């Protein structure tokens, strides 16, 4: 599903190149649940953003579902992204001015889904996550765990093939964290969603079926 070859990314500071990612080669198949680990600043989030097409690599090739992303125009890439990728953030990143319902609905708006269909899809999602009663609340009226639940619901609304999660439990207590991880596992096993998560926690990483360790922008060979 995802093939990265010789991916590098750097920033130039005072004529000096600092590598954020260096010569990354990575293959991820459909249905995998991958955890990316590593110390702060090792390039975990950068890698996730490159995979998620939110960021460009400076060098290397990236194939997603058999299409080469690095040669694609922004419009096509955005089309591909909208259809197949969902993002979950550590800081939830819900839109403060929108209610739970409207937040979940927003990705569908960008895909021009019809109104009736949208209603049904959001309704299903609210049901599935047991947050029907909270649909008219605003993000600041929810607890962190609830907000992240909404964030995940929003990332899944367009039925993506790939879910990218950047420390999804980082701001949550351990009980809330466990619930989220259980949910991820269930999504992966029952719905066949490919998941790539960035995490600091060994325990959370263990939910996945593969762990990639990053250090200073390079992949460390599996132990």
């Amino acid at each position, binding site marked *: 599903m995802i093939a990265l070859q010789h991916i590098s990314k750097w920033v130039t500071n005072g004529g000096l190149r600092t590598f954020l990612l260096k010569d990354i080669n990575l293959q991820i198949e459909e249905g995998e649940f991958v955890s990316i680990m590593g110390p702060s600043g090792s390039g975990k989030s950068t890698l996730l*953003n490159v995979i998620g097409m*939110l960021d460009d690599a400076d060098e290397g090739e990236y194939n997603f579902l058999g299409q080469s992303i690095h040669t694609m125009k922004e419009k096509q890439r*955005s089309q591909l992204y*909208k259809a197949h990728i969902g993002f979950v953030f550590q800081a939830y990143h*819900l839109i403060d*001015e*929108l209610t739970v319902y409207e937040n979940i609905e927003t990705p569908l*708006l*960008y895909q021009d889904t019809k109104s009736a269909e949208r209603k049904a899809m959001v309704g299903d999602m609210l049901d599935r996550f047991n947050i029907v009663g909270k649909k008219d609340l605003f993000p600041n009226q929810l607890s962190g765990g609830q907000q992240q639940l909404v964030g995940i619901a929003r990332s899944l609304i367009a039925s993506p093939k790939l879910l990218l999660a950047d420390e999804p439990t980082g701001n949550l207590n351990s009980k809330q964290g466990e619930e989220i991880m259980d949910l991820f596992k269930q999504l992966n096993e029952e719905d066949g969603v490919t998941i790539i998560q960035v995490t600091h926690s060994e325990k959370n990483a263990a939910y996945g079926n593969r762990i990639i360790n990053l250090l200073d922008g390079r992949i460390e060979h599996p132990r």
Partner: protein
Amino acid sequence: MNRNYLIVALRNFWKHKVLSLINIVGLAIGISASLVIYLIVSHDFSYDKFHPDRDLLYRVVSKIEFPDLTIHNSGVPAPTAAAARQEIPGLATVTIFRTNGEMKVSIPAADNQNVGVYRKEKDIIYADPQYFETFQYKWLAGSRAAALANPHSVVLAESKAKKYFPGIKPADIIGRQVIYDDTIKTMVNGIVEDFKETTHFTFGEFISLSTLEQSALADFYSWKDWNSISSNTQMFVKLDPGMQPAKIEKQLAELRNRHRERRDKDKKDDTQHFLQSLNQIHFNTDYDTFEQRQAHLPTLYGLLAVASFLLLLGCINFINLATAHASTRSKEIGIRKTLGGSKANIRIQFLSETFVLTLLATIVSIFITPWLLMVFGDFIPPAVTTASVYQWHVWLFLLALILAVSLLSGYYPAYILSKMQPMAVLNQRANAHSSGSGKIWLRKILTTSQFVIAQFLLIATLVVSKQVRYSLSKDLGYKKDAIVYFSVPRNFYSDKKDDRRLVLQQKLKALPGIEKLSLSAEPPASGSTSTTTMEFANGDKKMETMVEVKFADTSYFNLYGMKLVAGNNLQQSDTTKEYVINETYAKLLGFKNPADAVGKFIERDFLVPITGVISDFHTKSTHEAIKPLAYSSATKRSYTFHLALPTGTRNAANWSNTLAKVEREFKSIYPEEEFSYSFYDDSLAKMYKAEQDATSLLQWASGLCLLISALGMLGLVIFITNSRTKEIGVRKVLGASVSHIVMLLSKDFLSLVLLAFLIALPLSWIVMNNWLQDFAYRTNLSWWLFAISGLGMMVIAVVTLSIRTIKAATANPVESLKVE
């Protein structure tokens, strides 16, 4: 999709209430001003658009050239029409008609018992039968062909028919009698529908022109004279399709030559005729249109400039505030982009947000429009009212305006916002707004231009009002306080001698409370002017000069405090027997010492002696230089009473008492007339109406511009202080004083205001200096005018800024640091 945008837009407006309010107020003022201008312009352009073949319709007008004066007259010599009809090919129709002032209309009842009397009826003309061929009316009774064929016929418009013959069917009104001014008896021969669209042709009664031609009026109006031109006698033609107006003008000149030559062969012809398109008659103020209101293009342009300034300032506020606040929206944009929103999506979202805001501003502006219509009442045609808003094309205009304003003010902020990189704004929130140094630069330019406009208008306001004050307080060469004048009626129709005014003069002389009394013509300065060519033989050389002629009696100069510098006062006489000239004329004639002019003769039909010279005074507004002038005594032409009342506050209380007595005497002699008088100083002030109107327009415009600019600055300073809360806290902890922090926050703005002043200074100097050149007598552009306006602007800026900066500076640093 739009519902989602709308919701976010409204919630955002609510969240940033002050900001939204500033934007809405700014835009609403601009939009209302544009709306009002649009109403005026669309009204002015709606005149007489409905006539069939209106592009073939022309008015024949005249231009008369004198040595140093050109007179434009909207009329022609009356015989021109008949001759043109006979001799000029290419004219489909030719019509001539004569307009009248107010007339008395009497309607004998069907049984001839009672007579209905309507004293002051307007819109009555003498028209030839071709009038109704040239202008198409709908006939309710009678026929177009026959209605005006015979003398003593009249055609009434429906409105007048209903007034004179209430409840009677048009067909039954035919044959009824209508009597004008007790002498002209006519029979109703047709009823037409009034023109319903906007038109100058508001005539309601059409008396057959042959009525005039067969009566003594023909002589009185010089109806057969090729040299007499009156703007009351107007000629319209309809050209054959494809005919060039220039060709007709050439033939008119030839026509005039043929007919004129038979009479005044030796004199050079000074008169030319032109064809004026019907589309032009509302706009060309050189030629009046039945003494109705015409569009005044300079005023229209002025208003247009004001409206676009106000609109521009509102848009600038929006752009400034939207880009300044972009950082507060950056998180939302980042998220939207990660959810699949493209640049175009984001742009459309923010443009529709601007659209909603503009829409709200427009709704507000519809509510403030009646107020604006009131404030600018002096510039607005009376036909434009609040009800004018409810026309489909006005709504179309508003829609177009909303779209234009949304794009103008929303595009740049939308562009800036859509360019944000999602990961950059989501991860590095702290420096999200430091990235846009380009935006700050633009904001400074926009803010400066706002203040340049406001500063410019402020200076202009001060200069114009200074000039008006100067004009009104200038020594004009005569006394103007406590003088009242009024006219008595004069019967133009009868040749009988009317000495009633002399009786009134005797009665008024007996009244206490009147210090001085004069029976003359116009006061020293008035709207109307009468000029003539006078010849003076200086040795062999003949000097021909355009001289303004005025009439006085023996007490006139004394009453108006005008000084005789040489010779004697006029002696009472029925017609002109001698002249008192002004110093300018004396100098022009070559007399360095005015006394030398006394005893010389001016050549008229006979030699008229100069008996005195008076010192110069202004007969017009200070726009114009003092020109040659001659006074003579002519009781025959004296129909205006001038009363000098005793001055002093105690005496002033008695004025109304005195005037009431004057009215009683007036009524005893002219029982049917209305008594209306004017205080001379009031009517003088009216001569500066254009300037005073301009002053009030400028006052409002500069006030509103200042308001919008100050609001914009307030919005920016709110944003700046909010984003620098932490810095202010740290500085305070480090020991900065309140004044230090206020200065820190205000410094940038104040330097922009100063820069704006420096730009506006030369600009306004040039423009206002140019404007003052229009006045022969003008105030000077004093340095303090500029100083005051610059200082005033600075004070406004400081006050506006301090609303927010002082609060920020006195805030407890512990609080502000805790929040972050």
